[in-house]
């Protein structure tokens, strides 16, 4: 099977897994928009969270959203009104990525073999605090740039005018 076909197959699983998660544990309506192969090498976003996987195929499942959307999602998940990026928000976003990746993995294991997942890694950009030489905190508007030579398969969703993207990078592992 061509890699593109494999990715399209998996995109359907990503859409199912993401919608199931939002319905069952986040209690937010999420509208599926479309799937695209993003050829651009830069993905600019406020919040990025990755879980990598390794097996017959290897790659990354990543989520990309605004800071505002991450706060909405974490607030809904925790049933608390969260207005600032805290450790809990970062933890919640990581868990969401973990659950989407785990669900996708379960769905594709039958066709593509067993895979091992990493723990999630989450990056928050925008209003990043950096330390000046005089030890004065400085707020800078930075964003995480995700650079890759491979195209991302981006499954796009929206909720209340906000966009939530789930990305997949996939490569067939070298035979041993």
């Amino acid at each position: 099977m061509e890699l593109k076909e494999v990715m399209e197959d998996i995109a359907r699983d990503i859409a199912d897994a993401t919608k199931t998660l939002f319905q069952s544990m986040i209690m937010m309506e999420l509208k599926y928009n479309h799937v695209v192969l993003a050829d651009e090498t830069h993905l600019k976003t406020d919040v990025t969270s990755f879980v990598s996987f390794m097996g017959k195929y290897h790659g990354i499942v990543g989520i990309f959203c605004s800071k505002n959307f991450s706060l909405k999602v974490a607030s809904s998940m925790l049933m608390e009104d969260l207005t600032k990026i805290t450790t809990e928000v970062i933890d919640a976003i990581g868990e969401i990525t973990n659950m989407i990746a785990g669900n996708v993995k379960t769905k594709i294991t039958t066709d593509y073999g067993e895979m091992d997942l990493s723990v999630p890694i989450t990056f928050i950009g925008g209003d990043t605090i950096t330390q000046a030489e005089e030890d004065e905190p400085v707020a800078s508007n930075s964003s995480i740039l995700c650079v890759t030579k491979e195209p991302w398969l981006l499954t796009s969703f929206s909720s209340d005018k906000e966009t939530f993207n789930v990305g997949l990078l996939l490569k067939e592992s070298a035979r041993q």
Partner: protein
Amino acid sequence: MSKVLLIDDSAVMRKIIQRNIKESGLIVNEFIEAGDGAQALEKVSANELDLILCDWNMPNMSGIEFVKTLRSLNLPQKVPVVMVTTEGSDSKKLEAKNSGANDYITKPFTAEQLRDTLGKYLMIN
């Protein structure tokens, strides 16, 4: 007095599981938390537990390593272990069962799924 050990590297997930258990009417008097399998082993030796809920993928010591180690201890009371994990494949479920886990819940879960499975081990109001 029912005492439940929650093992998950995500504090948020431990919080969500506790909230769901409380809202579902399952009776738990005390929750004890651990962030990985190694921490959990310390908690096991220091507490009399009624139930253990255990994630799979964690740093330091994974959930499955924890279950295998726990069962190898030959404790006088065999505390039931329910895996609560994103690992949902049949092969992982079988591995968990063969390692000594009693039940399995896949994340994401609904409150009903949690109540139905944990209701086998905890009293319900």
